[in-house]
């Protein structure tokens, strides 16, 4: 689908980032939801292992 054809349809927008862009689209009657996205760190095994190790060291006061 070309970009021009996309914008001739009814748009449903998910905005990630500055909320001002959501507000601007809403004021133009565009359907938009704001997503507060963060990296899902607990699902990353490497990150989880690092955090567990730091928690243990902190607990032991090392």
């Amino acid at each position, binding site marked *: 689908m070309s970009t021009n054809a996309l914008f001739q349809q009814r748009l449903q927008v998910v905005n990630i980032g500055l*909320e001002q862009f959501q507000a601007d689209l809403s004021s133009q009657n565009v359907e938009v939801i704001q997503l507060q996205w963060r990296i899902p760190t607990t699902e990353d095994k490497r990150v989880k292992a690092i955090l567990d190790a730091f928690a243990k*060291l902190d607990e032991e006061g090392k």
Partner: protein
Amino acid sequence: MNRETANQEVLKRFQDSDIRLIGMGIAKDVIPGMHDKMILHAGPPITWERMCGPMKGAVIGALLYEGLAQNEQEALLLIESGQITFDPNHEHQTVGPMAGIISANMPVFIMKNFTFGTTAYSNINEGPGKCLRFGAYGEAVITRLHWMRDHLYPVLKQAIELSGGIDFKSILTQALQMGDDNHNRHKASTSLFMRELAKYLVMVDLPKEDIYGAAEHIEKIDMFNVNLAMAACKTMADAASGIEGSTIVTVMARNGVDFGIKVSGAGNKWFTAPANIPEGLYFPGYSETDAAADIGDSSITETYGLGGFALAAAPAIVQFIGGSYQDGVNITNEMFEITTTENKNFKIPTMNFRGTPTGIDIVKVLKTGIQPTITTGMAHKDPGVGQVGAGIVKAPFACFVDAAEYMLNKK
């Protein structure tokens, strides 16, 4: 020393420093390790081949400025001959905004941390539009750099020396109360600096037109103070580096290709990941496809709790980078989740004088998934064009993970 104690020592060095602008010098005379064929750049180490467009443009401009090449072709031949050494500013107690290119005969400010004995250097701001730090290297750019060296620098040097040293932490502290984030807005801090300097400018023993030119140069550049703020932060970063066991970030810097951080407990080691493209507002005629990736040493301000971390204190800059006042408050609130303290020097009036979030802890970044937010200018991706907009950018998560893993393995 355990992590908590080590981190407290870093925060002490961040906040208890007495920082003064004490003078100016020519880079090769004052910057440690600098020589005639060395060019310093922003961010972590990078080779000429991997440099982005604006950094390559600024390197060419520096060689023209130095008279080491007469045109772009000669500059490229000289670089390809291997005679030019490239090194990060940060490895030489120095910082520079955007491309951050500093060559041997450029004048630099000298900032001293009297509490912890560190010294840092930064170049003079050229102003907005087409300039070296955004990769422009046309005749007008080089002519202005020569004017800065031959006419502006002698005046500023003499005035600063006559002052006996200007309390720079005080200027930044006051400026935050006056609507500056101290990264992308320096309207207040530049005015405060000029107020301090004015009485010494009139005592300078140099031609009147040069003194007028210096005053006019500062008057026309709202961002004049960004280089000085960066140097002030660099004195604190170096003072806080190398505290065994600390997981607090002491440096964040970008070269337009890689984003790099240093962590106090890891000493001088860089942890890098690909730099992100900023989001924000573009000047008329430009779009996201024109922008280079995140670039510059100026994120040293965020490292110390300013810039993106202090956005709630700077409603005017939030509009300039494409957001609302509430966006600024939200970002500052988010940064509290990854930092260790509320800064005792920098207070945000609009948040009931709460201190700015200070001391990024890599463990908190991993726990929350929140990436540090940086306010930034945006350079065109091609050499020779200049600035195309301003916005915000997130530090890449991967370098914090690598740093944390390194710290664990070091235990």
